[in-house]
């Protein structure tokens, strides 16, 4: 994915809110790129432009594949369909055969640990389980790119860690170009191949870091990670 000379502003009662001014960024294929930045710097806007929800003022984002998956802050499941149906709907056109489709649904439900909850409605599940279901949906859909907008933020710490674990396991099995925006440095360190740090509005790239340690071997007290963490923190603080 490549962002080229992007301009975007929003009109607000307080005047024009300039989110991107001549913003460019190149992200690698088949890797997890984490975009880290202060709240309100335009991370979600970037994803929404990539997904085509909102148009840019000028410039744009190139090499966005047609087929996308998106993990939102909320699970965004259809409340009137069962968990299994929520997943099967997005693969209906890709797997026309009913039998094969339901096998695929079961497989992904099992991968996120929801094997016995396919027949439940979303409101019968806990928040963490609903987000698991949305992860299953994102991976079941044969997309070439995955957009993530702080999907673990609304959860408790232990739940968050277990969900991050589920996510990385699934991702290693089926790697796809992933853009993950967050303001949580530790989450970034555990998940990212590349971390790009953005400034406040209008967003500029401050610096970027590559994390080479395999995800399964990472721990937050690893000196290599803490050194990246310190550099990121000082970058963000300098700009406050």
């Amino acid at each position, binding site marked *: 994915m490549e962002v080229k000379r992007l301009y975007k502003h929003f009109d607000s009662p307080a005047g024009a809110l300039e989110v991107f001014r001549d913003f460019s960024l190149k992200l690698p294929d088949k890797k997890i790129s984490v975009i880290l930045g202060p709240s309100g710097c335009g991370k979600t806007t970037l994803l929404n432009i990539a*997904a*085509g*929800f909102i148009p840019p003022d000028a410039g744009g984002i190139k090499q966005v594949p*047609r*087929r*996308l*998956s*998106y993990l*939102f802050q*909320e*699970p*965004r*499941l*259809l*409340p*009137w*369909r069962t968990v299994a149906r929520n997943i099967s*709907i*997005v693969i*209906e*056109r890709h797997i026309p055969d009913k039998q094969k489709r339901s096998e695929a649904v079961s497989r992904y439900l099992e991968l996120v640990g929801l094997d016995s909850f396919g027949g439940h*409605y*979303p*409101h019968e599940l806990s*928040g963490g389980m*609903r987000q698991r279901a949305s992860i299953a*949906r994102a991976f079941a*859909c044969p997309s070439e790119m995955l*957009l993530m907008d702080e999907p673990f933020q*609304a959860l408790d710490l232990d739940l968050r860690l277990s969900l991050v674990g589920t996510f990385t396991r699934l991702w290693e099995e089926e790697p796809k170009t992933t853009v993950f925006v967050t303001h949580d440095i530790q989450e970034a360190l555990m998940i990212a191949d590349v971390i790009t740090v953005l400034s406040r509005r209008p967003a500029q790239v401050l610096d970027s870091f590559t994390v080479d340690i395999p995800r399964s071997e990472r721990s937050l007290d690893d000196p290599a990670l803490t050194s990246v963490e310190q550099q990121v923190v000082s970058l963000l603080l300098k700009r406050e």
Partner: protein
Amino acid sequence: MKGFTGFARIPKWTVVLLSSAVLIGIWWIASFFVSDIILPPPGRVLSDFTQFLAQRSFWLSLQATFFRGIESFLISLIIGTAVGIASGSIAAVEALFRPLLSVIKATPVLAVILLAFIWFQTGTVPIFAAVLMAFPVVTQNVMIGVKEIPKELVEMGKVYRFSPKQQFFHITLPSITPFLISGGRSALGLTWKVVVAAEVLTVPRHGIGSGLQFAQINLETSRVLAWTLTAILLSALSELLFDLLSRLIQPYKRKRGAHGS
């Protein structure tokens, strides 16, 4: 406050039963003081009603009114949903229909019935009048429903490339279903009232309204009330069926914001 909470603890159906008994009691006592033409006692009305049940003409009337009502209701539902979805999604369509809907809302039911009687044959009048009065109710509700379709789910559907058909059946329709049900319920209640009123004025061969009209001409007040009871029962029964239906088509408990956190 103590007395109030004590009152609130009485089961609801007991209160309903009690208040019904009081109303009937007042009716019964009042009937002693006036002639049967002004107000017959409840027992008379009930016996007239049970006599009805043995008469073929009663069942024909009930059947005629029932089918007029159902036909009107289905037409209202179809027109109301179509106009509601269109006005909810396109501002220009809403503007186009707004004057018409405002005029209909402000028009007295009887004016519509009388005009329809000038324009159409007897059999068409109740249906035309009922549709004209009831479809705006459906439209209004569906329009609000369409405007309240969760934007989050629409975006989700866009990302996962829902086809127009999937978008309609998995997002639009389920979102507006609660509004469709509440609009449909009000529309059906209104439909029965308008159909019976139109029958009173146009006097088709069979119909609850025709029965009311004949009984009134003959000053058979207890029969007027027995026909009224028939109309009330018809309306209550359809309400009950509506409840059953709505529970049947919404097996999920739709909690507020269930698509969210």
